[in-house]
């Protein structure tokens, strides 16, 4: 792996390696001294063209726990001159000798361009590009699902702890909400499929992209039927932007109330789930819109754990891209 741009680029072996490495990273985080010397002297730039305090802090924490030097570069506000700024910023980072660039950008494809345009030679980690991909989010979701549900997977290695070594074969995951505008959904569909899980997207038809037919998943417009009939092992709720129902005739659904009525995860729907089923949300949540407080705060919800797992997964990604597999031996993990 040279870059981490899209979950669609990952083979199953690479995906499992990322998850297993994340498990090793997580184990180090229960130590008193959490910091590892692995990336000492290396520079990670967090390049954020779009606000995302959570993702930035998660990457920053991950890089610092690996002893990398971290530079936060917030380019938001320069979107007026958006054209040249990506290229010029890339050339600047190249001149400064960045070893890895974590990029969040409003434009789909920005991470791909950074990695492939010849502007810089650092490893590029996509921290979310437009409505395209958000690979570390999908990896942390898969990691969380595996930790909880790997025992139910068809192919759990003997003696595995927390599902290490396992894929997600046979597990059923429902992804509910605004698929059309969601990089989280795209990243998850590709990764969950690669890991052997079955995926059903649940959304009003207006929030499913034209062209979804070739995706390796099913599509449902009926959340109750999916929960009750298909019986998913994990339910991933996507954030619904309130502005999706503004714009008058262009609104994607009639009202937030109607959205919640048909696609919100509330106490009644929570009760439809099997005992082992878990609830995920990439955050930040709109409590009362796509997820009720009861659901968000229930024992099934692993939403806070997702945040912690995000640091471990991002440590793993930085480690594998910057230290490489060859140097993994002998590192004090």
């Amino acid at each position: 792996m040279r870059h981490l741009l899209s979950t669609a680029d990952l083979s199953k072996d690479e995906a499992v390696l990322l998850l297993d490495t994340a498990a090793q990273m997580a184990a180090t985080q229960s130590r008193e001294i959490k910091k590892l010397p692995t990336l000492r002297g290396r520079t990670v730039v967090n390049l954020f063209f779009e606000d995302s305090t959570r993702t930035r802090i998660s990457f920053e924490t991950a890089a610092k726990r690996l002893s990398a030097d971290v530079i936060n570069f917030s380019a938001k506000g320069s979107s007026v001159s958006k054209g040249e700024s990506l290229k010029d910023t890339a050339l600047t980072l190249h001149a400064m000798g960045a070893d890895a660039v974590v990029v969040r950008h409003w434009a789909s494809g920005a991470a791909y361009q950074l990695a492939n345009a010849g502007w810089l030679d650092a490893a590029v980690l996509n921290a979310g590009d437009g409505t395209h991909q958000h690979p570390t989010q999908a990896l942390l979701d898969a990691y969380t699902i595996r930790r909880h549900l790997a025992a139910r997977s068809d192919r759990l290695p003997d003696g595995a702890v927390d599902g290490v070594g396992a894929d997600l074969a046979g597990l059923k995951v429902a992804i509910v909400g605004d698929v059309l505008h969601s990089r989280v959904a795209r990243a998850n569909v590709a990764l969950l499929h690669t890991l052997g899980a079955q995926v059903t997207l649940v959304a009003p038809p207006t929030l499913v992209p034209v062209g979804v037919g070739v995706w390796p998943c099913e599509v449902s417009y009926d959340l109750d039927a999916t929960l009750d009939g298909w019986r998913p092992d994990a339910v991933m709720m996507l954030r619904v932007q309130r502005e999706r129902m503004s714009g008058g005739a262009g609104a994607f659904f009639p009202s937030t109330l109607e959205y919640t009525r048909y696609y919100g995860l509330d106490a009644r729907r929570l009760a439809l789930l099997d005992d082992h089923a878990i609830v995920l949300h990439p955050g930040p949540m709109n409590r009362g819109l796509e997820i009720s407080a009861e659901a968000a705060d229930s024992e099934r919800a692993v939403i806070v754990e997702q945040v912690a797992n995000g640091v471990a997964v991002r440590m793993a990604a930085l480690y594998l891209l910057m230290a490489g597999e060859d140097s993994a031996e002998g590192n004090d993990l």
Partner: protein
Amino acid sequence: MSTETYVLRAARPLGGDPVDVVLRGGVVAEITAPGVADAADATVVEAADHVLLPGLVDLHTHLREPGREDAETVASGTRAAAAGGFTAVHAMANTSPVADTAGVVEQVYRLGEQAGWVDVHPVGAVTVGLAGERLAELGAMADSAARVRVFSDDGKCVSDPVLMRRALEYVKAFDGVVAQHAQEPRLTEGAQMNEGVVSAEVGLTGWPAVAEEAIIARDVLLAEHVGSRLHVCHLSTAGSVEIVRWAKSRGIDVTAEVTPHHLVLTDELARTYDPAFKVNPPLRTAADVEAVREGLADGTIDIVATDHAPHTREDKDCEWGAAAFGMTGLETALSVVQQTMVDTGRLSWSDVARVLSSAPARIGRVDAGPHAQGRPVAVGEPANLTLVDPAAVRSVDGTRQVTASGNTPFAGVELPGRVVATFLRGRATVLDGAPVGEVVR
């Protein structure tokens, strides 16, 4: 008027049998058996195995002047046109200021005359400022020195149905035509690429085929209702071909154009996020490419027009979502048509002369008078001619194009055919494959 005499030795008019063609006094003076024409006092152009076409006529060129001279000027764009084998171009109205008055169209017309590479026929805006709110002074533009006959808000759609109806009716008074950029604006807000499998995957906002087809369907019915002539710009979808085919079968007076890039490129290229492939209307699917080729072959689509859209590097060397729409086309159009239609046996060279010269000249009403274009290769006709070596193969390099901008989607691609010479009323604008200096008339 040029006093020079040229003998095109053993050229093949429209791909037919070799003949010598003598250009003198601005017209085709003689056509003789090969090797027979008297070369005394004449410049001989060895043209064995070269195809001789009437000078190409582009109904859809963006010359960018006035306003965006950093991307292209009338001089640089028309020089590129000559290099591509063109002897006339229609310059689109979306300049700054917009070509919506007699003053602006006359300015562009004069700049074209001064440059001298090709005949420049300004296209007039349909609405003031391309704003789609009220008709521009179409009559004044038609009456001006530029004698405008083609009107278009290209870049924007005349989406208001009443305004479109009025425009279609109004231009009948001077035999004009409305060239519609068919794009339903509400269905394409924020659109970045064709809506379909690829857009769903790469996460770019989709530009659905229906946004083009719905406007074309409406406009052909409007044209039928008011008995007007309609031209459809850069038709790009299989559905659009079907609608135009149906309209023609009903006898509706509609013509349609396809761009070279829509004859060969598909939306799969958006996976590279390279803004060189960002264009409006967007690149479509392989099925659409096949449908427009079929439409061009069976005559449903009347012409190929370049939609040559030069852009500065800074407008293309950026994120897809921030990049400008458009690609250069004047210097690659004939090669793409040869590759997709001639070399595949779907069009003859005679058909190429029709779709790239006589038909666009007829639609633009520039096929008569002293500056007639798109005429047959025949004695007495104006010597507007293009000599092509169809056996040549060249690799496209955006940085070495004649146009002032390098935004070709064919960078690094090998294309067949090379324009060897272009003649505008008997004067060579291109010889040995290169533009002939800074021409002084």
